[in-house]
């Protein structure tokens, strides 16, 4: 009986209903996801490298929605021809939220996205260090002028640093801009818990 339970936990879930497509992405992908603890993510950014033309439209869209400051980088762990980009996955269990001294990083009231409040972030870097996936970046904030000069703390003359990460475009309509901007259907924000959807997407 115990073995059965173990088997349940460690094997790939079989889809029980007749007529529904069996999830059929190869076991090594599952292995990759589990090994890198990516199954934590509810909005993992997957990029299909077979279709991505490296045009950076996703970054442009993200930037245009965030005052020219993109919230992710187009690199990350790769398995086969899929990349899990360094964009906040909005984990089920966000480690980054532990330890924030000001509470700037929080869950938004809208749908539970993990969001950093720019105004209260003091740039200590605790969240960036905590994030096991390196999805949070410490950035010298620039102003909105033409020069886009680095903003400087008048008190100690040092540049102001803030933690930035993907916020799923909570301030805008339409959902994450990156996904909408990819012209080749290469980018997807996937919920790792929804394996049916994932396998469908991987097998398009």
């Amino acid at each position, binding site marked *: 009986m115990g073995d059965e339970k173990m088997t349940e936990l460690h094997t790939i879930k079989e889809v029980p209903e007749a007529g529904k497509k069996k999830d059929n992405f190869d076991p090594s992908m599952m292995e990759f996801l589990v090994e890198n603890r990516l199954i934590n993510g509810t909005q993992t950014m997957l990029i299909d*490298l077979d279709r991505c033309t*490296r045009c950076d439209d996703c970054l442009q*869209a993200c930037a*245009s929605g965030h005052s020219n400051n993109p919230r992710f980088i187009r690199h990350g762990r790769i398995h086969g021809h899929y990349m899990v980009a360094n964009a906040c996955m909005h984990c089920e269990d966000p480690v980054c939220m532990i330890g924030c001294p000001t509470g700037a990083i929080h869950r938004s009231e809208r749908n539970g996205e993990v969001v950093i409040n720019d105004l209260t972030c003091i740039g200590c870097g605790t969240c960036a260090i905590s994030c096991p996936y390196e999805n949070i970046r410490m950035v010298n904030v620039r102003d909105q002028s033409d020069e886009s000069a680095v903003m400087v703390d008048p008190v100690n003359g040092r540049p102001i640093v803030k933690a930035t990460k993907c916020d799923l475009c909570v301030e*805008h*309509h*339409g959902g994450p801009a990156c996904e909408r901007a990819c012209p*080749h259907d290469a980018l997807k924000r996937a919920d790792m818990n929804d394996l049916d959807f994932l396998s469908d*997407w991987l097998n398009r």
Partner: protein
Amino acid sequence: MKTFRFRLFWAIIASLFLAILFVVGMLSYKIVLHNTAFISGWILLVMVLVLTLFNVRKKLTYPPLFKSATWMQFHIYIGALSVLVFLLHTEWHLPNGVFESIFYCLFVFVAGSGVIGIYLTRTIPRQLAGRGGEVIFERIPMFLKELREQAEGLVIDSLQFNDSTIIADFYNTKLAAYMSAPRPVSLRVFRHDRLREEYQAELKALHRYLSDEEQEVAEKISDVLALKDVLDFHHGRQGLLKAWLFVHIPLTYAVLLFMVVHLVLVHAFYGGM
């Protein structure tokens, strides 16, 4: 979720349907001696404007007007249909006059570069993913520098053994130039540049002159060469993915300007009903 094949199938069906509809329509009007060039011309104008709007949509993240991928699909199929409309508009003739010939060529280049672009965007990513070594294009010079420093470090390492300069000489005469820059443009069109294999083979051939430690260093240099090759590959292929748009987009604006002038000319010089 709809697979790509599903989407492709129905998009082709829809395009074929529109194409047949258009051809039938044009033929009917031609038989009854209507001037079909005006009808097809206006349709072409609208199509070109819609195609151009794709660039505008790419720059506009908000408001959310359909996914960019949807626009892309429309762009591809309307682009293909526009070639058909263009051929019917020009009645399958090559133009005779200066203005029209230039205009024709511009359109051909834009459409042609579009077709080439489709081919590139559907083949190169696969090649890149297959090759491995995913790098961001703008960072390639950085990585190149790192590899060069790595190689130079290894070469210097080799000098500490037996005071032999075999590897150093080899590096200076052959590898230094190779490591200093990405491979030239002319070779980017081809998939496989044999130079790296040559160098690796030559390094292998050098082994008989090298001590054991030097051989290890030579192996590491060989690995660096392999990495450099990956970088070159990415540089070439990703560069091509960016370069074709340098033809497609600027010429579109030339086409638009010519289109406006053509519109004015055709109405001013129209000779019939």
